[in-house]
């Protein structure tokens, strides 16, 4: 069992960390989320049919739960913070990254799952535990929010 678990960890942890990072915007917190997901998986190994999907679901839901805690609630601001002048590519990336952090958590989760993980609407709904209609509306609102925050960026078609 442990060999299978370790093999899955080596294969999936780095990718999950990337997803977690896009959700939370912090690499350290992303690692925490990955560890939490794998730790929970270890104790449920025999009961989990699809570890990969299970890990993704636990990771995303753990993060959404985390954002609901009062002391963790993210503070949005009306304007992007001032940043030093950097090369255009880097600046573009930072603008999108900052904007993504300002998108409400569940909308952000929809965007990450749909456009980074390439999940279908159905699979995204399964991960988030909501309806497909809810995923569609949250995704649409998330995209609108991003376009409003970074209207001139090429990353947003």
């Amino acid at each position, binding site marked *: 069992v442990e060999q299978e678990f370790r093999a899955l960890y080596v294969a999936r942890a780095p990718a999950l960390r990337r997803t977690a990072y896009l959700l939370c915007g*912090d690499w350290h917190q992303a690692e925490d989320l990955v560890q939490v997901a794998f730790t929970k998986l270890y104790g449920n190994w025999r009961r989990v049919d699809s570890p990969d999907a299970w890990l993704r679901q636990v990771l995303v839901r753990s993060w959404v739960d985390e954002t609901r805690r009062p002391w963790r609630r993210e503070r949005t601001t009306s304007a992007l913070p001032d940043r030093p002048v950097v090369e255009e590519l880097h600046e573009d990336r930072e603008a999108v990254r900052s904007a993504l952090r300002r998108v409400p958590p569940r909308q952000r989760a929809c965007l990450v799952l749909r456009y980074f993980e390439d999940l279908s609407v159905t699979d995204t709904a399964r991960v988030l535990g909501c309806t497909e209609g809810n995923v569609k509306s949250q995704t649409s609102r998330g995209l609108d929010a991003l376009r409003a925050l970074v209207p001139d960026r090429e990353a947003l078609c």
Partner: protein
Amino acid sequence: MNPLDLHDLIADEPPYFLLPDDAVRAGRRRRSRRRALAAGTTAAAVTGTALALTAGGGGPTSQLQVGASQSPSTAALPGDPITQVVRQHTPASWSIDEVTVDPKDGNDYTGWQGYVDDGQGRARLYLGFSPHPGSLQQHPCGDPEFVQGASCVETQLGADRRLVVRGVRPVGHVKSVFVVIVHTDGGGVSLDADNATFPAEPPAGTVVTPAEKLAYSTGTVTRPAPPYTTDQLVELAKALDELSV
């Protein structure tokens, strides 16, 4: 057409240092806690006890002193065979404290953790028991994830078991020596001796901040190297392996 490309946002991804060992250990502890709670065992028996063991003369005449116990159930720990074997294979002048014995998986031990001090600084000793076949790699020295750039030597111990000794990893500020005895069926025992202390894990269900989690996994270096020599760890591993068979 994909209206959003997020892949560029991870272009500055830092190196990945997390290891499956950490998740396995945390998973074992989490599972142990859940089992203990389900069985009605006090949580304190899982999350740790302050048990100070002082050797009077070593071996069978060792005198055990229980101090600052957090739970009545900790009184049973001095009789725990794992703790006894660790005591017997640790120099008499060294102290052992903050012993945590994970609940058994059936008749099998699952994990043990304690802090050892030879007078130069407390440091953690972690023991993992893998009674189920297929739990351990047969040739971990061939696995870069296990070796991590350290020295790694495999030695056959008779026909049915193999000794693995991984030296101190060249990266990171916590130095640890890893000794494993793996059976031909993939079961066995593992010992991890560090040169650091780590914050006690919070009770199950406690929410920790990323900073707290980082502090737990990073530890506080208390000495230049683990207190045990490799030979001492090998002898301890052999004794524990005999006990767990």
